[in-house]
């Protein structure tokens, strides 16, 4: 089809030939995508970096056997640069491909070093082959699904008469059924539920109730920690329950102070907190400053 039409100059470039100044000539569908979501949309259409390379390659409008790998590498790298400009997160394999193409480009442009490594030309040829192979499979898939398909285009007998001479067993069970059953079995066994044991936490309501009951028996200032449930009194254990009890009781004293039922006092930041029942007629804020620690 492209036999008669003039081939674009860039496309006519033999692989590994002199570089054309094309770094900014990203393919139109991508370069127009300045907004990140448009770029994302473009990216969404690809099944990985090789698929994207193939799409870029097709834009050269030449047979894949005559594709300019150097130009393709430039197109891909400028796409990745564009994506980074708009701070688009690219999956790792796109970046791996970019690194590989940058390396390939340097191998194609610089004189070949002596060594056993494959030459730049070999690497370019390998990439071209992979693109051809992927394109061949895409075309084959399209041809395959263009065939008349059973249940879509052609139909079997709609009301088969329960007679199957091929079936060797009365029971209908396929390898898929068997493997799926085992997969589920294993999933239940090895995966199952990651269960976190229920945690006992002290609630604010519990603490309020407890403090209210205890305060009647506490005529004078007492440290908050002395109100904590027995066993956690010191609060030294640092266990989740202890810490939650301390937090709940602290919040409870604030609640009760707000309701005017207790008074609070603290010497300095981080020093012990003292609590006592509110006494009528006394200045709540004054407090006995001479109180011992």
């Amino acid at each position, binding site marked *: 089809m492209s036999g008669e039409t003039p081939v674009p100059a860039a496309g006519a470039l033999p692989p590994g030939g002199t570089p054309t100044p094309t770094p900014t000539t990203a393919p139109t569908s991508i370069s127009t995508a300045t907004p990140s979501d448009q770029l994302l949309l473009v990216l969404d259409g690809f099944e990985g970096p090789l698929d994207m390379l193939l799409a870029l390659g097709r834009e050269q409008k030449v047979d894949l056997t005559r594709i300019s790998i150097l130009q393709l590498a430039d197109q891909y790298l400028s796409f990745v640069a564009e994506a980074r400009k708009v701070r688009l997160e690219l999956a790792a394999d796109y970046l791996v491909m970019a690194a590989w193409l940058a390396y390939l480009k340097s191998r194609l442009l610089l004189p070949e070093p002596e060594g056993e490594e494959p030459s730049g030309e070999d690497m370019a040829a390998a990439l071209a082959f992979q693109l051809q192979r992927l394109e061949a499979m895409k075309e084959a898939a399209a041809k395959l699904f263009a065939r008349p398909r059973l249940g879509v285009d052609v139909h079997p007998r709609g009301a088969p008469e329960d*007679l199957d001479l091929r079936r060797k067993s009365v029971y209908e069970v396929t390898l898929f059924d068997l493997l799926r059953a085992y997969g589920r079995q294993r999933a239940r066994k090895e995966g199952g539920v990651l269960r976190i044991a229920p945690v006992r936490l002290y609630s604010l309501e519990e603490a309020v109730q407890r403090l209210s009951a205890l305060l009647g028996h506490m005529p004078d200032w007492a440290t908050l920690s002395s109100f904590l449930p027995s066993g956690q009194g010191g609060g030294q254990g640092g266990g989740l329950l202890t810490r939650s009890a301390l937090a709940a009781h602290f919040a409870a004293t604030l609640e009760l102070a707000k309701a005017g039922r207790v008074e609070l006092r603290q010497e300095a930041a981080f020093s012990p907190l003292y609590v006592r029942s509110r006494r009528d007629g006394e200045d709540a804020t004054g407090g006995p400053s001479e109180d011992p620690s």
Partner: protein
Amino acid sequence: MSIKEVTDSAEAEARIGRLRLLEALLFASAEPLDEETLAGRIGPEAGSMLEELRAHYAPRGVNLVRTGAGWSFRTAVDLAPELRREEEVSRKLSRAAIETLAIIAYHQPVTRAEIESIRGVATSKGTLDLLMEHGWVRPGRRRETPGRPLTWITTDHFLDHFALESLRDLPSVDDLRAAGLLDSRPVLLGLGAVGDDSAVPGDGGAGGDDE
């Protein structure tokens, strides 16, 4: 060649086309089709065409028959004895049986107690019997442990049925996982607190892929 002739031939072709469609519709339908439905697809000549098809198929191994429900193709009644001989109603294997078979296939030789511990439920006697009856499993050697329990293994017929060349061709657990047949990501249930009734984890998520 006159214009009339051309028209006739085109008409004849169109009629053959409709006859072929009628034939295909009757063949592919799971239910008998009534004349009204067919006329909707074929046109008013559906009735005469049905008679034409009936006559065509009358001497053959397949007949076009009309029942109360409508028209349908059926194998010729006189052939019934020869067809019925092989007739067997195929049945779905129970889920327990498929799972037990899968476990024997993957873990063989395996004792009944081991099967039960893997499945987490008791195996009914009928399950192993059924699998043995169908020639998929058979008793293997006794395990040289206390009680000398019987082990179970799969048969050649098992390989044959599932078109496997050898047991080594069964996909491994990793293969199953890669193919999407085994998804064992653990289900993380929320952090529950005893004081909070609603957060008590239920069992709902455990075997989420069950039907």
